[in-house]
């Protein structure tokens, strides 16, 4: 990834940091240090034509992009008269999947290379030693420090003994803190509270004694039987098998991804209920990706259910229809839940007569409709991607490329949401009809309904319903977020990789959300445009969760009130799921065509701290990007850097932000970064 030296953002030096406590040195937390020249001279004796690969280091504050170890080595090599075939730097060399891919793609090891020099901790060296057939030379020593630490940079250590003693010792670890790892009390050698092995060190057992005394737990400690440390508890075979199984599960279908707590139990048991007709609806003209619709009604007009109220002005756009019958009371900007600012809307006062517009008429059965008819019906019905993105569906149906597979995305991989699940269970026939219509529209031979394995009832029902339909297959996907992302879904089901900057059609696929398929069915069978949708109202802070059929334009506040309101204070409300949804400060916003959920949960007041290069964002990014660079380059205003790290390929799924051990708001940083890249064009 980084064949040319990266621009140096800030001088690379050991600066004071909030993580460095007195007497500690942050360098201790990174994993390796270059061997000295004398040692390197020995190691390199008789070896020449070196390919040098350096790891960009981890577990240190992300202050400089360009670690100097590689250059330092090159200088030493020059001094020793060695010739270098080439040198390269990788992030997280131990990330075997990515390292192997990069070595393969970049084909970086030049002809004539005799030895591979690895500047990395022991993990990177072993990874390379397995990957290349050439002799591998370790040019660095892994740094030794006492015990493991967690994800945050702290001095707390855990030796992973598999038999945690902290319950007996007031939370002070006898394995790590006692030089002798004694588990039954002091050795007797301590003097004035200091260890006899290392007089700089406090005696751990004295600390344990003091803490237990302060808590009044000494008697309890003395009553404990003698502890025996069982070294057989750590069975490396078992652990290695486990780690291997984890790796397989993680890379199942596509690289990366995460498993956030599903929390679907709040709402999944509630059957669809029709939400009471609202007295007023606020219908936004821009509910989709592309140009907003132009209002074609004015204040005072009487409109009927399904009547066109906003016309699509261009190719990538969608018309908007009245979801209730009644009088237009305003045509003016109203707060947009995604844009966060007012945007043009038509406000209708409901007369509760449910008068149907004359244009709403069934279009007949599929056999009597041509592909073009279907596409026109979908366009005129204002159908857009209902999984959240809101891309006009009819545009997808005119890919201009041969399509051989239509994927119905019924993964619903977002935690909390259960709307798609209920649609599958209660509107299965409509979904299948919608899929058949899309298959016909794009002339594709095969349709897949992809459902995650946490919805066995839906899988069973759909499998039964599609039995005998040769062109439809139900695919069960092992639960993993963000499975429902188009590109992941295509990789998982078809094994094809959508190229950077490309669309599903580039690999012969069309992906549609399950509710979108249902909307296509409504448009054809009833002639009803997209005026209502299923919304899950749920979360720890919603009194009575449920799944509702809601008219587009219904107030979020009304929905929440109907569900018993919010419980407690300090609640965050999002439109959509917890991973990709949009936080709402003002609840007086309308439900849109793409709003699949209203969720309420505890506000998280976490404060972000500096990136420590733990590498977990790289580990989970399904697009195989390196999000840690995005926040760095955004803060540095380095647009070139952002482009080089392919920021525009990011789909803002939020995996990196979820896993970030420094709690950096990566998604908003990335959004800002994309904006900067666009503006720089």
């Amino acid at each position, binding site marked *: 990834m980084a064949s040319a030296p990266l621009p140096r953002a800030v001088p690379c030096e050991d600066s004071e940091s909030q993580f460095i406590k007195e007497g500690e040195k942050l360098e201790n937390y990174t*994993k390796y240090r270059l061997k000295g020249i004398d040692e390197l001279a020995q190691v390199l004796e008789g070896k020449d034509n070196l390919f040098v690969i350096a790891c960009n280091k*981890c577990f240190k504050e992300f202050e400089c992009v360009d670690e100097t170890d590689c250059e330092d080595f090159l200088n030493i090599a020059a001094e020793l008269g060695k010739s270098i075939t080439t040198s390269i730097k990788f992030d*997280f060399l*131990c*990330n075997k999947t990515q390292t192997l891919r990069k070595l393969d793609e970049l084909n970086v090891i030049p002809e004539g290379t005799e030895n591979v020099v690895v500047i990395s*901790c*022991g*993990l990177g*060296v*072993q*990874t390379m*030693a397995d990957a290349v*057939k050439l002799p*591998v030379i*370790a040019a660095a*020593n*892994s*740094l*030794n*420090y006492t015990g*493991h*630490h*967690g*994800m*945050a940079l*702290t001095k*707390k*250590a*855990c030796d*992973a003994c*598999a*038999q945690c003693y*902290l*319950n007996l010792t007031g*939370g*002070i*670890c006898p394995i*790590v803190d006692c030089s002798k790892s004694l588990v039954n009390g002091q050795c007797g050698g301590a003097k004035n509270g200091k260890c006899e092995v*290392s007089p*700089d060190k406090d005696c751990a057992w004295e600390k344990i004694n003091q*803490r237990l005394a302060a*808590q009044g737990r000494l008697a309890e400690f003395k009553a404990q039987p003698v502890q025996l440390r069982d070294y057989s508890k*750590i069975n490396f075979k078992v*652990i*290695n098998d*486990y*780690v291997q199984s*984890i*790796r397989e599960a*993680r890379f199942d279908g596509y690289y990366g991804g995460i498993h956030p*707590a599903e929390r679907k139990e709040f709402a999944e048991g509630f059957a669809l209920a029709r939400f009471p007709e609202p007295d007023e609806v606020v219908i936004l003209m821009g509910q989709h990706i592309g140009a907003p619709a132009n209002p074609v009604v004015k204040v005072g007009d009487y409109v009927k259910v399904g009547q066109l109220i906003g016309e699509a002005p261009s190719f990538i756009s969608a018309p908007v229809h009245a979801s209730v019958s009644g009088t237009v009371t305003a045509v003016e900007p109203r707060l947009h839940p995604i844009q966060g600012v007012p945007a043009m809307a038509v406000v209708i006062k409901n007369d509760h007569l449910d008068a149907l517009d004359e244009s709403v008429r069934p279009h007949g059965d599929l056999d009597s409709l041509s592909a073009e008819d279907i596409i026109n019906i979908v366009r005129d019905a204002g159908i857009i991607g209902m999984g959240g993105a809101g891309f006009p569906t009819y545009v997808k149906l005119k890919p201009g490329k041969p399509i051989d597979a239509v994927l119905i995305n019924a993964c619903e991989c977002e935690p909390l949401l259960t709307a798609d699940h209920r649609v599958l269970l209660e509107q299965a026939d409509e979904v299948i009809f919608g899929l058949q219509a899309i298959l016909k529209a794009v002339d594709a031979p095969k349709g897949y309904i992809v459902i995650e394995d946490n919805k066995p009832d839906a899988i069973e029902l759909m499998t039964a319903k599609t039995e005998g339909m040769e062109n439809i297959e139900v695919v069960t996907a092992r639960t993993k977020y963000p499975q429902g992302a188009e590109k992941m879904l295509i990789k998982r089901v078809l094994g094809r990789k959508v190229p950077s900057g490309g669309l599903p059609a580039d690999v012969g696929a069309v992906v549609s959300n399950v509710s979108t398929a249902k909307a296509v069915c409504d448009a054809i069978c009833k002639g009803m445009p997209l005026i209502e949708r299923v919304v899950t109202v749920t979360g720890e802070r919603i009194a009575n969760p449920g799944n509702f059929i809601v008219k587009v334009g219904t107030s979020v506040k009304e929905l929440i009130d109907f569900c018993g309101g919010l419980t407690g204070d300090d609640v965050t409300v999002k439109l959509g799921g917890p991973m990709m949804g949009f936080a709402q400060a003002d609840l007086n916003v309308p439900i849109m065509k793409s709003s699949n959920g209203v969720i309420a949960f505890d506000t*998280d*007041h*976490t*404060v972000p701290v500096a990136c420590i290069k733990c590498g*977990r964002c790289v*580990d*989970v990014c399904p697009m195989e990007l390196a999000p840690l660079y995005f926040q760095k380059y955004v803060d540095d205003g380095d647009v070139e850097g952002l482009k080089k790290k392919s920021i525009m390929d990011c789909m803002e799924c939020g995996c990196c932000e979820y*896993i970030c051990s420094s*709690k950096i708001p990566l998604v908003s940083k990335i959004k800002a970064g994309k904006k900067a890249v666009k503006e720089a064009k």
Partner: protein
Amino acid sequence: MLITQLKDKETIASVLRGKVFLINCHGCKEVRFPVAEAETLRKELAEDGRLAGVITTDYICNVENLTKRLEKHAAEIAEAETILVLSCGVGVQTVADMFADKRVCAGCDTLPMPGFQGVTPLEYDCAQCGECYLNLTGGICPITACSKSLVNGQCGGSKNGKCEVDPDMDCGWERIYRRLEMLGRLDLVRCPTQIRNYATDLEVSK
């Protein structure tokens, strides 16, 4: 970033006193956290009326953030006699230090994981010995791949390429020999005798 597993029921029951405040750390959950078992435990405590409160959060080893997140649970923590932490040992020690006057208990055992804290999980391990031997061994680590962490060659106890300590395990030194043979570097096994330096970072890495 380690593997955690719940201690057995009896052990947990024996360390709890009075009401319990439960802390679940999901920070490294992508590797291993006993999600279902922890939920069962929470339910049982709640049914017994012993649950003062619960927080499910991540990276509790980050003291600053944990402090902020626990603010709104202050009353629950005050009410609890025991804080039961389900996390690796780092997390338990962090909480124990934050509440030095409280009974803080560990609900989990922590197992080591190859690939330590870098990008994990990985099948390789590094014991951070501080004096990388990989140059002498064709890139196979004698510290972690040999049960006895021998640094000067085979112990002589392996049978058919398997370790005498753990017959499921390949003999690390046989693997090293085969790798060096393949690389044409068997000369390396004639290097001077290696002496492992057990000094810690405090003594050697600065």
